């Protein structure tokens, strides 16, 4: 759900026929926001011009057998929606589910304003580098963000959901109030402000296993390390807050040490 948009036609070379919901008369044609391997994300004003929503469309994969394709699309849309609804019910910050059609392959969810943590954090780090502020100096704002991330992930795990693909691209910062997010008046001190919202539950599953939770944290830790090496040292803040977030979180942190030791990969046989 990033700011820049690609026109659907430009990205789709072969002009696929989109489901009817995409062709419904609305204030503006749906805008393609991102394209992953699995799904296309559109911004649509299908509901009301004043209420944008995110449309996640899983096009059918022509290489797959049609029966298998329909089965997988249906299963994935329903399981993503179920996880989102569960999170919403339990108060975990995620987009609300508005509608879905598992046969046509789409899921309509709340549009989250703001930007992903990856972009904001990189801008923040860049600005600090330009202003020549040393690492560890005056980084209370970043510490605070790490705390909010740790708390959000903790709340997710507490209700028995693992995300499956936690990266800084799947964490949004939603502005706290409408007036604040007004364009260029934003200063460096407010750049990391906002409520953390978890997005993209395409690989999420319901699990209470410490192993799965630890792998979730490990993936996030690696994402921080590879995407924002200069913020990596503060990842301990995420873990500290996570440890406080639910009963049993400390067991997960212990497990995380094991996961780190072996990495994600097994030793290969044959």
């Amino acid at each position, binding site marked *: 759900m990033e700011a820049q948009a690609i026109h659907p036609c430009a990205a789709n*070379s*072969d002009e696929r026929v989109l489901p009817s919901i995409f062709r419904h008369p609305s204030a503006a044609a749906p805008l393609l926001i991102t394209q*992953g*391997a*699995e799904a296309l994300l559109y911004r649509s004003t299908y509901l009301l011009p004043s209420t944008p929503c995110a449309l996640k469309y899983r096009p059918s*994969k*022509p*290489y*797959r*057998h049609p*029966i*298998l394709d329909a*089965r*997988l699309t249906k299963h994935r849309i329903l399981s993503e929606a179920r996880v989102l609804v569960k999170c919403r019910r339990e108060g975990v910050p995620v987009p609300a589910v508005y509608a879905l059609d598992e046969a046509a392959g789409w899921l309509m969810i709340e549009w989250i304003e703001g930007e992903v943590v990856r972009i904001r954090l990189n801008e923040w780090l860049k600005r600090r580098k330009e202003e020549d502020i040393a690492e560890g100096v005056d980084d209370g704002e970043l510490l605070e963000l790490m705390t909010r991330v740790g708390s959000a992930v903790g709340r997710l795990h507490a209700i028995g959901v693992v995300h*499956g*693909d936690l990266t800084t691209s799947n964490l949004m910062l939603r502005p706290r109030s409408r007036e604040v997010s007004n364009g260029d008046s934003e200063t460096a001190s407010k750049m990391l402000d906002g409520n953390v919202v978890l997005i993209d539950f395409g*690989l999420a599953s319901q699990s209470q296993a410490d192993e799965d939770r630890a792998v979730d944290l490990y993936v996030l830790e690696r994402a921080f390390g590879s995407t924002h090496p200069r913020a990596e040292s503060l990842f301990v803040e995420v873990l500290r807050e996570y440890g406080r977030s639910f009963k049993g979180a400390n067991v997960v942190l212990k497990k995380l040490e094991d996961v780190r030791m072996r990495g994600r*990969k*097994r*030793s*290969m*046989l*044959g």
Partner: protein
Amino acid sequence: MIAIGLEGSANKLGVGVISHPAPGKPAQVLSNIRHTFVTPPGEGFLPKDTAKHHRTWVVRLVKEAMTEAGVSINDIDCICYTKGPGMGAPLQSVAVAARMLSLLWQKELVGVNHCVGHIEMGREITGADNPVVLYVSGGNTQVIAYAEQRYRIFGEALDIAVGNCLDRFARTLEISNDPAPGYNIEQLAKKGRALLDLPYAVKGMDCSFSGILASIDILAAELKANPEQRDSITGEVITPADLCFSLQETVFAMLVEITERAMAHVGSNQVLIVGGVGCNERLQDMMGIMARDRGGSVFGMDERFAIDNGIMIAHAGLEAYKTGFTTPLEESTCTQRFRTDEVFVRWRD
């Protein structure tokens, strides 16, 4: 420069001679000979018997390869052998043969990673420059992309390899192992129509096949007990061909999916399929549809180079040898565990 390569990590014994002319010119395959240890239907190959097969045939194959290549011992620059990964006993018998040749001919040894051999040969034959590689065989299932001097593994099978799953199902059905169990499954699958429900096990860029094998084995047992079963959708009688068809459709869809995810991740639109399962035309077709959809293309190979062979070991070994890499005699061991990303790829930039 000319190298001889010896491969015997599984049930194929391969010897090949390759020549690398001046830089920038394509490599020349001077000879590429293979002998496969084929077991009766319903049986797999055991390490002990496979090693014996390799020991019996290696001298004959080396002689044949040298004669066919038309080169003398003096023309050979180095002797390349498979260091791993693979089955212990067969690897050992080929390593012993390579050491013997090294001492006899007074030539340097080069230990080669089997997976890197497949990748390098695939790049050389197809001309794919920097593809995402799907390496699928009886022992390995990996999605690989090159970055900074290493072939990095983006996804892999977490339990058995996809080829192992197919081979073992061929054993369940007691299909012939000649020329290869997977080949015979492919032929049978062409007659299949009904798609039966099987588990689909993809997790991110990794996948798993043992649960699928267990399920299809159960379906095969049910079919044997009650041959009159009908498919709920088509109403037709279910045949072993339908089982092969369903198995292929499911596992190949998983492979294409993880490959597509890796392509999206690294931003590449070329795919290279290597390894024995890469000969399967249905897999190549499915991969082709996916790649075309992304505006890219797929590079596949035929059985001469996709199935384990000596020439790929010679080729990858010679690439390493040209950068000054050799394996001293006292370190010329072999290992069953040797990950693709352990190899420092000095010959690429």
